[in-house]
Structures are given as C-alpha cells and as structure tokens.
C-alpha cells in the first residue's frame, strides 16, 4: 500500500513535528549536492531560488526563452492567505476547512492543513520581495473574496496577480543565477527521467535551438512543469503547456494520481470561430460583483439590455441562495452548461451566459469598477469588440486546471525515491475541485517552504553513490529519446500535429469533459487507440531534429497527450461516483448535484504504467477524515 508519510499527532502540529524530525544538511556540505528543478513557473522558480539561497547547486530547466514566460504569469485573480486582516472570521482552520470541503473530500487533511498554515508566510515573503499587491489608502494590504468562500482572504495585484508573483520569484531566481548558485537552462525541454539503482538520478533534455540531446546528473530531481488542461486543445492554458515531463516520469514508474480530476472554469470568453487557438479566462473575481443570468425564454434573441428584469433568470442566485454567484467553480460551470443545453444560452453559438455589471456600476460607480477590473474589461473588449461597461459580458466554461498529477507523499516526493513534484504537476491538495486563488498559494507553498525542507532531509538520510552521465542508464535513455523523435520525423504523413490535437481535444471535451458517463467514456476509450495509431502513421512534419523545429516540439507533446487521454478516461470510468469536478451522469442527488460514494471511492486513485499495450494498475491511498466530517457538499 502507498505510504503518504503523514506525521502522527494532532493536525496543528504535524508540519512542525515533521520539520523537527527531518535531518539537515550542514551549510558547508550543501554545495556538494546537485538538484535539478524542471520548470520555472511559480513552483519551480520559487523552489530553485530558495534551494539556491540555501547553498545547493541547482540546475533549473525551462522550455521558455526566459523563466518569466511560464504559464503562471497569466493567473489573474489572486492568492489566498488566512491572514484574517479583515477580522471577518477567517483562520488557518477555516481555510483548511474550505479547501477540504471545496475539494469534495478527495484530498489529504494533513497536506491541506499545512497549506493553510503556510499561506501566512507566503504573503509575507512576497511583500518582502516587492510584489506590488493592491493596497488600501492607509497603506495596508487590500483583500477580496473569491469563488466558493464567505471571507475576504484573497490578496491581489489588480488582475495580474500571477504576473506579479511570478516576477517576484523570477527576480529571486535571477539573483541566485547572478550569485552562481543556480544555473539556468532556457529553451531546454526535459524529455526523460533517469533512474539508477531504484533512485531518480537525472534527466534527458533536448536543446530547442540545436536539437542536441543531453544528459544531466543530480542527487534529486524536482518536476514543477504545470498542468495538462491542454489535453482538451482549447483551454485557458498557455499554448505550450503540456504533460510531457510528468508523462515520461509516469512511464518510468512514477504513479499518476486522479488523472480524471480536471477543472472547467466558469468564466471564460465563449469560443467564436473554428480557428480559435485558445480560450481566454475572465478572472473569477468578476463573480464578486457581476451577476450571472440568461433569459427565461428559450431562444430569446433580444439584446441583453432590452430584456426586462422579470424575464431574466439569475440561475446561480436562484439555485444557490446562500452563495449566489460565488458558488465553487464546478457548480457554476455545470449550471451554465445546463441552461445552455436547455436552449437558453446567449451569443452567436448559443453557448454562453451573461455576466452583468450593471448593478455593480450603479452601486460603486464606473470608476471603482474600472479600478478593480479595468484590465479584464479591456481584454474582453480587445477579443470581442464589446464594451462590458455598457453591455453584459458573455461567458462560458473552459478547461482550466488539473487537480490530478503525479502522486506525492507528505514530503512531495513521488513513489520514485529522489523525484519530487511541485505546483500543478502534482496531485496534491485540491482534491476533486480547486478553489479559486489557491493554485498560486500551493505552488509557492511547495516551492518556497516545503521542498526546501524535505529535499535536504532526503539528501541527508540517503547515501547517494556518485554517478556520471557515462552510466549506461543515461546513454540508453538518450538513445530512446532520440529514436522517438526520429520516428516522428520519419512518418511523413499528411496531418499536422495541430489537427490531431484538435481532434483529441474535441473528443475529450465531448466524452470526458464537464459531464461523463460510462458510455461516453467507453466511446472515448474505443476511439483513442485508433487516433493514436493514425497519428503514428499519418503525422506530417518538415525539417529535421537538429534545428529549431516548433512543429516537432508540438508533435512530441501531442504524442504524450494522446496517451494521457486514455489514462484520464480509464480513471474517470473506474470512479463510478461524482465528486467535485468529476461529474458522472449516473451518480446524482435528487436535485442533480454531484453524489459522492464514500463507501467505495474515498481514496486517491494512483495509476502505475505497465507498458504500452497493457492496462495500468490501480493503487489506492485511502483517505481518512478525522477533523472535517464527510458530508454531502451543499452550497444551497
């Protein structure tokens, strides 16, 4: 059985106890250890910078031209912390409770409690670095409320919180690069993981400019490579976000946990054309002041401002009077899908609902609305050509975040000794549904605080033999990577990587998206192997592997998405309950909400790769709830 290494003792003391029991590495010895960090988003940059500050020899890798481009840069709304600066009843315990409940009881109590505790330190750290959070006139930090909670615990920097937090971590990282503790490898993509003697001892990379395949040795490897929402092709993630690093690790034996837990965000700009290459998120903070509605009548094509008040259905306020527009994302998304399925959707394709600011403007005035959301309104106007100060925005759900990821224990170490996983790449703390503004919090908790405590313990308690890149495990992995790339280049078929990716995305959205059924999942599972086979027979690429070749990069990533998709469907099919974002049609309460089955599914599903043509093996990590009682989630 999986051992999550959760410390014993009361919840409030677990992390303290764990830290005390961990071994340390003396300052003079730290330089002797090499740590590889793959990824320079919030989780990776913060981890690399902090381990550098401690004196370890760190090598950090990113496929971007500079760490400041990581997808974390796009986060808009904010970051949670249980500071209770507002004196509105917040506390570490309440943040813990909200996260467990929001995740629909599919996360670990111990991890989530630690996350809530560390949220306090994160804000302190970021302010010290100069992150320009929003302030009140008295000079104190401002906060706002965010999806699914009743306290104002979200710190923000206009609609660009992710950018400002990432720049803080990026600058700390650059300081360490200048100091010589961190070596940065930009435009370098990790394509494989290397194990020696049962331990993870390095990675294989491809230089995206020259195509050179290289091996890198380390005493510990961190993957902080982000989420895999792009399996749906159209998502709010950056175009290059992909699953390759974690997928290749999975193929080397790392367990993949809860792959089917993917979040669909309620407030995105609806798709407008066939050529659309991505979906744009409108920060969820908009739901604080905007009201969501559709016409009561089907097929009502009047302009929104001509529809009188009593012919509008404020469906979130109606269904969830206590939380109204602020219900968690999964509920808001499904409710929007349902009203559109009923034929009451708005906009050109009928797949949209209104998010209306008229009341907020009346209440606070245009200026205050502009101050809070100005850049988001501007972005909306650029994309749609519409002025949201005058007409309601149109929004529709889109794939956004993946709660699933590589399985990690309390130390954030995977089942492979020496492989640590941080940020969105691990399955961690959000259970079956992530609350708004808590991904940034988790990425930074992992990078600034948890890994810099647990990695030294790993180094200090294990005697690691020196290895070098001449070890056969490295040359073999290098050869395998090169061979796979050559295979892609040699197909010389007729379909582009994008066309396969689009088809895969549509399939996953239709069959394994916001709602799932045994039938839809079986259909996807029947189609996926065919699609994969077609990909390997009919892929079109030009150029070589020894140059900058963006289509080759894309194709290589799509080849992994095609495999991951199957695991997602297998996981979704096996979990015959609904929980959080995983909504199985077969498992609903009488009022059509997600119905959990704690008797059978109160566990983390961690899958083990068994080879290309063999079914993966399921390992279960049972979840126990000692502090928060398992209840059917209700936001009514």
């Amino acid at each position, binding site marked *: 059985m999986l051992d999550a290494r959760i410390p014993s003792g009361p919840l409030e003391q677990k992390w303290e106890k764990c830290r005390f029991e961990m071994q340390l590495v003396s300052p003079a010895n730290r330089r002797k250890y090499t740590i590889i960090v793959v990824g320079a988003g919030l989780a990776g940059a913060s981890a690399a910078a902090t381990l550098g500050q401690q004196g370890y020899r760190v090598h950090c890798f990113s496929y971007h031209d*500079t760490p400041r481009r990581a997808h974390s840069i796009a986060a808009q709304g904010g970051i949670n912390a249980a500071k209770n600066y507002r004196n509105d009843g917040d506390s570490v315990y309440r943040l813990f409770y909200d996260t467990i409940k929001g995740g629909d009881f599919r996360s670990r109590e111990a991890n989530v409690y630690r996350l809530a505790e560390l949220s306090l330190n994160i804000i302190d750290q970021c302010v010290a670095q100069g992150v320009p959070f929003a302030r009140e006139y008295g000079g104190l930090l401002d906060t706002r409320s965010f999806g699914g909670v009743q306290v104002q615990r979200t710190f923000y920097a206009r609609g660009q919180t992710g950018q*400002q937090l990432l720049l803080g971590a990026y600058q700390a990282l650059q300081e360490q690069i200048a100091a010589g503790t961190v070596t940065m490898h*930009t435009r370098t993509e990790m394509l494989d993981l290397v194990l020696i003697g049962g331990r993870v001892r390095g990675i294989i990379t491809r230089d995206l400019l020259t195509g050179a395949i290289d091996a890198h040795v380390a005493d510990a490897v961190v993957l902080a490579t982000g989420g895999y929402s792009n399996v749906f092709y159209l998502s709010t993630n*950056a175009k*290059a976000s992909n699953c390759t690093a974690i997928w290749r690790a999975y193929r080397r034996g790392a367990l993949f946990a809860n792959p089917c837990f993917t979040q669909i965000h309620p407030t995105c700009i609806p798709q407008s054309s066939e050529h659309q290459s*991505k979906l744009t998120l409108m920060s969820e903070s908009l739901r604080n002041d905007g009201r969501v509605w559709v016409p009561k009548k089907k097929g009502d094509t009047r302009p929104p401002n001509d529809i009188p008040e009593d012919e509008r259905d404020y469906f979130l306020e109606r269904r969830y009077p206590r939380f109204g527009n602020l219900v968690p994302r999964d509920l808001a998304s499904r409710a929007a899908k349902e009203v559109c399925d009923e034929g009451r959707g708005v906009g050109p394709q009928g797949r949209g609902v209104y998010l209306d600011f008229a009341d907020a403007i009346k209440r606070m005035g245009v200026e205050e609305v502009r101050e809070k959301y100005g850049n988001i309104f501007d972005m909306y106007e650029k994309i749609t050509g519409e002025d949201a100060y005058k007409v309601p925005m149109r929004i529709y759900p889109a794939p956004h975040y993946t709660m699933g990821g590589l399985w990690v224990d309390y130390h954030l170490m995977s089942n492979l000794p020496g492989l640590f996983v941080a940020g969105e790449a691990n399955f961690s703390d959000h259970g079956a549904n992530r609350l708004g503004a808590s991904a940034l919090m988790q990425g930074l908790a992992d990078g600034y605080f948890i890994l810099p405590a647990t990695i030294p313990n790993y180094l200090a308690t294990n005697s690691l033999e020196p290895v070098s890149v001449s070890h056969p495990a490295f040359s073999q992995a290098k050869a395998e990577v090169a061979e796979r790339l050559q295979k892609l280049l040699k197909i010389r078929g007729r379909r582009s990587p994008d066309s396969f990716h689009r088809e895969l995305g549509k399939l996953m959205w239709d069959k394994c998206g916001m709602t799932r059924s045994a039938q839809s999942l079986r259909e996807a599972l029947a189609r996926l192997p065919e699609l994969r086979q077609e990909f390997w027979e009919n892929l079109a690429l030009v150029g070589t592997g020894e140059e*900058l070749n963006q289509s080759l990069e894309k194709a290589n990533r799509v080849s992994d998405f095609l495999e991951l998709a199957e695991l997602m469907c297998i996981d979704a099919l096996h979990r015959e309950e609904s929980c959080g974002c995983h909504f199985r049609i077969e498992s609903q309460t009488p009022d059509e909400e997600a119905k959990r089955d704690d008797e059978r599914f109160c566990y983390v599903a961690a899958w083990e790769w068994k080879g290309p043509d063999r079914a993966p093996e399921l390992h279960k990590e049972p979840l126990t709830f000692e502090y928060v009682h398992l209840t059917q989630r209700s936001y009514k």
Partner: protein
Amino acid sequence: MKFTLRIWRQKSREAPGKFVTYQVDGITPDMSFLEMLDVLNEELLARGEDPVAFEHDCREGICGSCGFLINGLAHGGRRGTTVCQLSMRFFKDGETLTLEPWRARAFPVVRDLIVDRSAFDRIIQAGGFISAPVGSAPDANAILVPKDIADTAFEAAACIGCGACVAACPNASAMLFTAAKLVHLNVLPQGQPQRYQRTLNMVAAMEAEGFGSCTNHGECAAVCPKEIPLEFIGRMNRDLRRAIFRRRFERWRDATQ
C-alpha cells in the same frame, strides 16, 4: 478576408535572411493575428515547406513571448496591444502586411521572427530584485506602502519584457525596460536599501549588452503594450544621478578619512 504577407525568413542566427511573399485566404475578422499565422503554417506544412517560426505562448498579452514588426510597427502599432491580442478586424481586406523580427544589435535573430532577448534577463540579474531570502520576511502588514506608491510600483511592474520598446527605438535602447524595473523596486520601501547600487548596476548591464542610448524619441512608450509611461525614464535618470553623486561622495569620504 485575404492578405498578402511578406515575411522575413532566416534559418538561423548565422544564415542570411530574406523576405518571402505568401498569400492567405479565408481569414475571418474575429481571428487573431497569430491565428492567421497558424492558418499559413498549416498550409506550409501541408505543402512540405518550413512553417514560419514565431514565438507565442499565453496568447492573451501577458507572457511577453510574442512580438514582431508589422509594417514597421512593433506589435502592429495598436495602443496597449500585443500582437497575440491583435484581431484581424483591425486590418483591411486585401492588405499587404510586412512581418519582420525585432531589429536590434542586442537581440540577435534566432529564426524567422524569433529573436534572442536573454539580454533582458542579464539586466535583471545585475540588480533587478530585492534581496529577501525565504524565512526573513516580517508580517506583510508591518510594511505600510501608501496606495499611490503601490500603484506606481504596479504600473511599472506591469512590463511584460517583450522587447517592443527596444525594437521601436531608433537607437535600440533598453531604457524603458530598465526604467520600469527600477521604478517598480526603487519606489517601494522594501527596495530602498539597494536602491542606488541597483540603479548603477542595472544601467551598467544595459550598456554592456550593447543597447543604444536614449535620445528622447519616445517611440518606446508609444508602442509599449502595457503603456509604461515615458516619464519613468526621467525617474531612472534622477536616481542614476543621485547614485553617481553618492558614489563620488563615498569615494571622497573614504579617501579623506
């Protein structure tokens, strides 16, 4: 909509480059500029030709990856807009558009429309940070920051590091980029201890990278997709003069002690 595209094609840093003309058809007004290039690239791939290399990632104007000149204008010249946010409705059907990479000595061409902007990272390495090792921070509300100062810091910190300012400047100067980071950090109370050293180091790094000097054209601020104001360069110069003066004073003081 139809367009004639004249695109700069260059295989690598050393290889010679040239303009190649392409036609695209079937473009709709709601497509973004990069989606139009996606269409072109799909066609090139189908014909067995090399797709046009261009950099992009977020496609929502925040990561700073995208950027090239359209008819000589950085990001196409629309106020406050990156090329990924530029929609085709801003162009006339049948228009000829010339696409070329940022032109600057400090930004060598990598391939086609991609340039190497790592010089920006090295300017940040020289001092674009506040030293605050993890574990040392006081409570966040222990540091009061007046709202107007926080707002100025934010306005400066909004820079996305795309390099349009350099591309638009006749001298290929990186003053606006450097000033934005300096203003962000130098106005904050947390940034005071390193303020003058930071200014000296970052300006020196900027010069060492081969960026040109500022002769007050103001083209940089005009094309900045985040509308970083030109006035920040003035602020940077004031800090630079103070820093130089302080350094001279310190040297004189040390020499006379």
